[in-house]
């Protein structure tokens, strides 16, 4: 890992108001560097998704600071946060969030379109990325015509097509069976090997730790000391 892409310092987040107020995150310090995959693990309600949302510029911290590629999210308005996400972040969601009325290729191309990248170059780039995720033959298929694994691969293609510095994946294998889950993690792992790109995967599946270069644990909104990747049946790399 060579280059710090996301830097969170003493981050806290309070959600809700009045009696329903909850301190979802407390004093989180975290640095996400390029060229590796980080797993963020923890039980339900531990603050994983809140932390991912903060690191992805979807939320701003109540306390502390988050810097994404040198841009602080502190005080940023909705449009400034959107620009940070557009320029630096690719998201992969648990339930894919593909557009049902668009084909696989159009879903991927949409990520370029919102960045103002259109025309033949955008189409060529889309095809290139669909080839990488082995879905070029299904480029004209609609999401309903694809399996869950294929839909998630389209979602990954959409996340990487604009070559963002960081990929944030929220439970990307939770809606998939074991084989498809493994394939998706292998794909994300391959993406994470690129030196200027970081991949952060939120999961509660301990079997996925083998894919990670770094594993973070979170409990009750607090990061607990880092654990070394363990060897298990899903481990794909022999570096540990």
């Amino acid at each position, binding site marked *: 890992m060579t280059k710090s892409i996301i830097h969170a310092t003493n981050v806290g987040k309070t959600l809700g108001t009045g009696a329903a107020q909850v301190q979802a995150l407390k004093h989180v310090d975290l640095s996400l560097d390029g060229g590796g995959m980080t797993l963020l693990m923890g039980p339900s309600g531990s603050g994983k998704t809140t932390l991912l949302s903060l690191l992805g510029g979807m939320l701003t911290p109540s306390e502390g600071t988050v810097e994404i590629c040198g841009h602080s999210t502190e005080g940023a308005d909705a449009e400034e946060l959107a620009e940070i996400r557009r320029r630096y972040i690719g998201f992969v969601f648990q339930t894919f969030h593909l557009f049902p009325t668009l084909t696989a290729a159009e879903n991927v191309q949409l990520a370029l379109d*919102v960045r103002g990248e259109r025309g033949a170059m955008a189409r060529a780039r889309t095809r290139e990325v669909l080839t990488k995720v082995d879905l070029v033959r299904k480029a004209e298929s609609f999401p309903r015509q694809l399996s869950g694994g294929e839909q998630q691969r389209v979602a990954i293609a959409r996340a990487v097509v604009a070559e963002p510095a960081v990929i944030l994946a929220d439970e990307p294998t939770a809606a998939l069976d074991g084989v498809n889950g493994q394939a998706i993690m292998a794909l994300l792992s391959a993406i994470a090997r690129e030196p200027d790109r970081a991949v952060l995967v939120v999961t509660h599946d301990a079997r996925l730790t083998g894919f990670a270069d770094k594993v973070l644990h979170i409990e009750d909104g607090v990061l607990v000391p880092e654990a070394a990747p363990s060897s298990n049946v899903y481990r794909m790399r022999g570096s540990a």
Partner: protein
Amino acid sequence: MALVATLASRNLLQDRLRFVATLIGIVFSVVLVMVQMGLYLGFGRMVTTMIDHAPADLWIVSRGTKSFEDLSLLDTRIGDRVRTLAGVAAVVPVVIGFSAWQLPGGGMTPIFVVGSNIAAGGIAPWDIVNGSVQALSAAGHVAVDRTYFGRLDVTGIGAKTEIRGLPAQVAAVTDGIRSFTTTPYVFADLNSARSYIGLPASSASHLLVRLKPGADIGQVQSAIQAAVPNVEALTPAQFRTRSRSFWLFGTGAGAALFAGALLGVIVGTVIVAQTLYSSTKDHLYEFATLRAIGCSKGYIYTVIVLQALISAVLGFVIAAVIGFAIVAATAKTSLPIVITPSLLAALFLLTVAMCVGSAMVAISRVVRLEPVMVMAR
């Protein structure tokens, strides 16, 4: 097609039933407005048809005359005085008034007589399909429109009857000179018309003034006003405006037409707003996903506005086809609906404004959208 347009059109078509309901709402609204405004234009043209076809540079009318059909009377000696003014070439009296047409089978039907000295350049009937204008110079010769053959119980040229007990014969037949009051116009020579209406030779309803070449119309108008008290000298445009204003707004007819049009706009706006809002709500997670992947609000607004524009264009095209069918169907009626290119253009802009305005309701929902909502699903 641009991807944003693809997304907008497919969002619309995803729920076809709702899209059809949207189109029906727009079509209903636009057709309603089109008919109301078409009636307004048609009525506006009908009430000025005599002024439009009169060969006059100026009209002399009694002070306060509201329209061509106003039955106020002038003394014909006014014409003698006006003829002496500089720039005046001719003054031709016109008489108008209601009378009664004797039906062959007994009974009478009301008519509206228009008479003037046709040989001297008075109001002559136009669009003659049978007979001639010259034939009207003979005493007792009249022109009627073939639309009213049934009402007058005549079959064409040569038909004889009595008007107010005086003999009359159809000597010319016109096509399309219909009265918005539904009372048939009957054209005759000045003296015959006076007899039919029961006016003395010293009276006229209006005086048509024609100017000498090069005469300044404004100066002549001022000279008439100065020379003759209790009359008004109006240009055809002024008389037209006054007539329209009286019939359309003085009688409340125009207000009723505008109220109908406004109702159409309100109905259309509500229907489009409701369907676009519900479509946007259905696609809320997709819009949130767009926001999550960094899309600007402007991009999302574009999707919604494009949906509104697609609905507007399709709805307008269907409405225009229906509108032209209505125009064709009413062309031969006493109150034809008129659709001009400028009305069509205005209606298109109104449709677009209505649909885009309706989109604001949907946009107001998206403005509050938090991209983080996609993480919880």
